[in-house]
């Protein structure tokens, strides 16, 4: 049973919760309102690449690619909507639509110099947008890092249009050196599901529709010492020490294993970690851990560790299992937090323990089915169930059906406060 103050749903742009004061379902925004209308820019942003590609294919030193996705979302809330006649909370649902365009631009400036610039433009429409005041302002900026590279192009009743540059960096490589400057993804994870080493951009698996992830405004210098070994150092832009992240990563290969060791400073903590990717016979064996030692007495230490095994059978059935220990995790929080908890490498999952199992199987070469389960053996026995169906409709056209169902054990037994379903059509170009 949801209580006052419970958060029922949350995304990068809005939050659904039961108000502490009134007990009513409440939508809140996560950042201040600021709206700029530039409809022409919008049209330009959405259709530019198609015009660009209508041209011929002569050799050139730049390229465009990307995709357009349309996703319909159905969010079902059990016992969440207050019905005053009945004097009880009843079930309700929200229906939303998201058109999403991603444009990746690459410019090979010189042999050793490349520019990357990626633009992400989204058009939101639906119940959640309508029910949420200042929806545009809420989604703006949440994915920004140090610099503000995003804007709300339209914000009207049930419609919001938002665009942002989530990659903008120069890459210089010469010999064994590689230097990147600008908004980039620094992905230091090595294991399959959870990545405690990913201290620059932690990943929430519930946010499956943003596989590229937000970028970090950073400088990264990498030196390759062998075919699978390297040393790298990365610094995120900052004004104050308490928000800085500076870290080094050493990768090396021994036997048939890749190893990595991580050390650095991140937001008032010293981070020490490591990971590996290898095999047990024909199965993959991967693991990763990070210990966060506070440099400030008011903070608590944290430790996150994960280990996993994956195997692919000769009939293409794929199995993946793993475990996460998260010292910060709760043992009794409501499962509704899954869409809401404060994500970071320190806290990759809202619970202390997570047991993961995933299975996927190609029913036909065009139709792939799978399901992932995460069970937390804690007081509330939280369970996350994530079935997926993926269909290749044609070359460059894909259709996905994704479910996200959450369950936990409350006073009246096992319940499922939220079920989300997504139908996504994607065209890549």
């Amino acid at each position, binding site marked *: 049973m949801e209580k006052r103050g419970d958060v029922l749903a949350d995304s990068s742009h809005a939050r659904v919760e039961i108000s502490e004061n009134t007990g009513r379902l409440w939508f809140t925004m996560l950042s201040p309102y600021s709206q700029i209308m530039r409809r022409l820019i919008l049209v330009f942003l959405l259709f530019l690449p198609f015009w660009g590609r209508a041209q011929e294919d002569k050799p050139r030193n730049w390229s465009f690619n990307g995709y357009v996705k349309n996703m319909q979302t159905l969010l079902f809330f059990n016992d969440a909507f207050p019905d005053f006649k009945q004097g009880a909370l009843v079930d309700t649902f929200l229906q939303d639509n998201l058109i999403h365009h991603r444009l990746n631009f690459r410019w090979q400036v010189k042999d050793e110099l490349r520019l990357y610039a990626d633009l992400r433009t989204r058009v939101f429409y639906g119940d959640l947008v309508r029910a949420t005041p200042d929806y545009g302002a809420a989604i703006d900026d949440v994915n920004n890092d140090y610099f503000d590279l995003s804007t709300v192009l339209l914000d009207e009743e049930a419609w919001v249009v938002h665009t942002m540059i989530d990659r903008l960096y120069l890459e210089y490589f010469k010999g064994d050196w590689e230097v990147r400057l600008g908004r980039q993804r620094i992905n230091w994870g090595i294991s399959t599901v959870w990545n405690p080493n990913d201290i620059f951009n932690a990943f929430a698996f519930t946010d499956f529709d943003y596989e590229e992830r937000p970028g970090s405004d950073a400088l990264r210098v990498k030196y390759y010492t062998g075919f699978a070994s390297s040393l790298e150092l990365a610094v995120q832009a900052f004004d104050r020490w308490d928000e800085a992240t500076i870290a080094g990563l050493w990768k090396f290969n021994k036997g048939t294993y890749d190893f990595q060791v991580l050390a650095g400073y991140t937001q008032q903590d010293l981070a020490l970690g490591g990971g590996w990717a290898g095999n047990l016979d024909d199965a*993959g064996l991967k693991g990763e851990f990070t210990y966060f030692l506070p440099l400030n007495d008011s903070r608590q230490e944290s430790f996150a560790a994960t280990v996993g095994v994956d195997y692919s059978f000769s009939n*293409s059935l794929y199995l993946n299992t793993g475990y996460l220990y998260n010292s910060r995790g709760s043992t009794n929080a409501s499962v509704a937090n899954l869409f809401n908890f404060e994500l970071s490498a320190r806290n990759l999952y809202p619970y202390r323990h997570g047991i993961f199992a995933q299975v996927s199987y190609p029913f036909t070469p065009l139709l792939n089915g799978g399901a992932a389960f995460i069970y937390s053996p804690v007081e509330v026995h939280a369970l996350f169930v994530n079935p997926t169906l993926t269909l290749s409709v044609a*070359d460059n056209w894909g259709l996905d059906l994704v479910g996200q169902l959450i369950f936990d054990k409350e006073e009246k037994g096992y319940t499922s406060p939220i079920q989300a379903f997504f139908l996504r059509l994607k065209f890549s170009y």
Partner: protein
Amino acid sequence: MKKLILAVLTITLAMGATANAQSLTAKEIIQKADQKQRGETSSGELKMTIVRPTWKREMQMKSWSMGTDYMLILVTAPARDKGAAFLKRENEIWNWQPTIDRTIKLPPSMMMQSWMGSDFTNDDLVRESSIVIDYTHKLLGKETIEGRSCYKIELTPKEDAPVVWGKIISWIDTEEFMQMKAEMYDEDGYLVNTMYGKNVRKMDDRILPSIMEVVPADKEGQKTIVEYLNLKFNEPIKESFFSIQNMKRVR
């Protein structure tokens, strides 16, 4: 997707490895065909088409290889997978995913699985590299395939050899030493797949079939086509080319 690439990886490595033949022995013939197809190093562009009765899918890639142990593949189409790369060094395989800026190590079991409805199976193709050791070779005679005079050679697995086929019949061109056709049989002697070499042309310094088609025996309207758009042999490629660093940079 991963499976498809791994299949190509194994096919291209294995294509070369179409083992060894008599005056020229049967074994020597197959060995010559093998050396010709593979070279010390090779690099090229290829297109793979999976054909089914009601649909087909295409993908295109560039590949670089050295012997059977080192290989790098860069996907150039379809759009969705463009830029993804695969690196194989002996028993280790890595996959580069540019969209998430991450190198993923794949479990060895991925090399063994079949893909895309299994016109090719990775399993047998990977193991074809040991075809010289694991099979005994018998020259059955000569036959004409596609207007070319070919040696017809029977390959029978040795006892306890780790191979999936019960028998392979291979047709090798008597002049150019290229495999023009092969039939793969299961352990009960039933025909499973037939592979055809087509569109013979000069690629770099040698004459080879530029198209390979694999047709399963009992599946109407189904086949897989691998077409070499270009191919170069024995260009100097260093072992250090096959690195994670280079997997991200090739284009």
